[in-house]
């Protein structure tokens, strides 16, 4: 029932790839499925319509249909169009000509403004900035306390003044404070408001006029439905957005909002929130997102994540091994043990080419979650180094020993081995150029 867009598109295009020649009818049938997949992923219905029209226009040409690999050509077109729809290249935060750079965060109630403002502050401090957080939400009970607490946890200064509800005054005072403490960036956390609430939208306009921010970022919930586009549009019209931060991307939200926002408003997505921890904020890369949606994985993000955690040689080693499909269970174990540092397993799996498809093929109880991770780790730990290097050694009696050692059943061991073999095969296919119509992002 909750297949991801990635899984759906992969299935659709597998069907196409299996065919030698394609007719216009084949293309239309596939694109109808693409449309449904997009709609189920909460892509705005107008956006889905124009997307399909664009892809069709390019796909039914002679060069595509009569080529040797029409299916793959069409996936490439979809990929290109997805990237275009997501805003092309990566967009960084702007800096003010003379500091401080002022970032105004706006959005609906519950989108995650306060959490995001502290994540953003941490991100900026790590890149050498000196941020000041400003509690500019005098309405929600304990909103100020929430930001003050987060600031304390991260050791980032917070300006607040609970004696007034005049937000423009609070912000003006905060700017003075920023000068006093030599802050290079000021992050203003405003109250959640409905995009149709004229009074509160006017308040934002006043604040904007008073402090002239460098960036006005809309904080948008990735789980938002069709209204996402309208919300972004209204905020953009009233206060002029310079970017979007998409929150709660760590769940199974299919991110249709992400697909639609930029194409309708022209405002780029700059960051995505991917977890509860303060460092769970990542830059948004349209090409990587597109390839993730198409089930091609996101090798570049995976490698970068690995780089953050290991030294460079190890990261390169991983990249090489993954590309050559040479990694064994020893590497697999090594990965598993580092996984906890890198995020949840589903996040990682999504980045490995073909992995999201692979996990779909397994029975429901074998789907990989963080509990499964512990079990897998126990199984691999119960193998000898030799077995890890060459899993084909594992016969019935070894299997029983491993099961006993890890507190699992021989079936569990088997399942893991099969899973591993399939994964290896999948990666081999990827790197041997079976998907040669496609450029792997960054590789």
């Amino acid at each position: 029932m909750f297949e991801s867009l990635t899984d759906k598109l992969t299935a659709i295009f597998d069907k196409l790839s299996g065919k030698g020649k394609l007719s216009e009818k084949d293309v239309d049938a596939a694109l109808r499925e693409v449309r449904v997949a997009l709609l189920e992923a909460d892509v705005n219905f107008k956006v889905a319509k124009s997307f399909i029209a664009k892809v069709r226009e390019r796909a039914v040409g002679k060069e595509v249909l009569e080529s040797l690999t029409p299916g793959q050509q069409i996936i490439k077109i979809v990929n290109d169009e997805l990237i275009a729809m997501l805003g092309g290249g990566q967009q960084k935060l702007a800096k003010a000509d003379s500091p401080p750079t002022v970032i105004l965060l706006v959005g609906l109630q519950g989108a995650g403004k306060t959490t995001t403002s502290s994540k953003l502050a941490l991100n900026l401090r790590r890149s050498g900035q000196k941020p000041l957080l400003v509690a500019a939400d005098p309405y929600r009970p304990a909103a100020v306390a929430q930001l003050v607490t987060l600031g304390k946890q991260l050791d980032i200064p917070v300006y607040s003044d609970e004696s007034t509800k005049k937000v423009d005054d609070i912000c003006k005072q905060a700017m003075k404070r920023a000068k006093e403490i030599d802050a290079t960036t000021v992050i203003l956390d405003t109250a959640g408001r409905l995009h149709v609430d004229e009074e509160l939208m006017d308040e934002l306009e006043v604040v904007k006029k008073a402090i002239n921010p460098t960036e006005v970022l809309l904080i948008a919930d990735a789980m938002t439905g069709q209204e996402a586009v309208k919300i972004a549009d209204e905020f953009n019209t009233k206060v002029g957005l310079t970017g979007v931060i998409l929150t709660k991307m760590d769940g199974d939200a299919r991110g249709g909002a992400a697909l639609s926002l930029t194409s309708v408003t022209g405002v780029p997505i700059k960051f995505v929130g991917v977890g509860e921890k303060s460092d769970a904020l990542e830059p948004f890369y349209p090409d990587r997102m597109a390839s993730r949606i198409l089930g091609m994985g996101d090798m570049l993000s995976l490698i970068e994540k690995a780089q953050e955690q290991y030294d460079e040689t190890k990261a390169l080693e991983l990249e090489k091994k993954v590309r050559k499909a040479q990694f064994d269970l020893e590497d697999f174990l090594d990965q598993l043990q580092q996984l906890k540092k890198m995020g949840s397993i589903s996040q990682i799996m999504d980045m490995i080419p073909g992995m999201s498809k692979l996990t779909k093929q397994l029975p429901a109880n074998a789907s990989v979650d963080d509990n499964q991770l512990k079990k897998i780790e126990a199984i691999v730990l119960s193998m000898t180094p030799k077995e890890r290097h060459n899993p084909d050694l594992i016969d019935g009696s070894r299997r029983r020993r491993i099961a006993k050692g890890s507190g699992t059943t021989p079936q569990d061991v088997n399942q893991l081995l099969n899973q591993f073999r399939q994964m290896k095969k999948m990666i081999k296919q990827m790197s041997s150029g079976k998907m040669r119509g496609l450029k792997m992002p960054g590789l």
Partner: protein
Amino acid sequence: MFNIFKKTKDSLERTRETWLGKINNIFDRPEFDDSLWDDLEEVLIAADVGVSASLKIVEGTKYRVKEENLKEASAVQQALSNEMVKILKSSSEESFALSAGNPAVILVVGVNGTGKTTSIAKLAYRLKQDGKHVMIAAGDTFRAAAIDQLKYWGERLEIEVIASQPGGDPGAVVFDALEAAKKRKAEFLIVDTAGRIQTKSNLMEELKKIRRIIERSEIKPQVLLVLDANTGQNGLSQAKYFTEAVDVDAVILAKLDSTSKGGVVLGIADELKIPIVFFGTGQEPEDLSPFNAEDFVQALLEK
């Protein structure tokens, strides 16, 4: 009943302007051909009803129009609203009612930022207005200042809030609150929980543990899922995962005061058979009303 109806209508006023105004326009045509049904499907999808529920509604309406040979726009509209009501009602034939106990425990769950804490304040206020003795357990020990937020409401509404230190074990808070509620002979204990993304298994385990702690006192909690009316098809996933973890009894549809459509409740009612019991419309304690399928649909469809 009339008041509630009026309230539904008022709060949905905006929704109608943007969405169902369109539906009315759709029917404003001399002939009902295929393009009508395509347009209708599109408007339903634009309201977050979802592809499969929209198709079901359109097919059902189409069937009735043909069977009953409907020619009038108003009759087709009626058929449409009947189809929508039918789906919403299929999930709530045995109407869900909060029943008092010694204490009855209402466990409130949902993803981050849907409006759990505010909904709890409203629900507590509502029960208190009915003359019930209500207490609240501050089970969200994770989010910074969540406890302060609940305490603010407690003071304002004069309702006792049982809380521990931030970062404490939510299970322990719930246990303490249960003991306190029994001692004070409260009729309702409403348990707040931290927002969690439904696919995070460790956090869902924590929720299961909270449920087990309540059940150990021989109390079957009534579990309410708070859903943001702006949520798209992910709402289905939320309802599914939370039901798997803690057996959701009913849904509170929060933030229906914006241009939000809340259409995903049709999908939830259709696929998961979970009834919607309340809807929230604003920031004030009284902004929570019982959900009624006919009123909801009629308020949406009425010209």
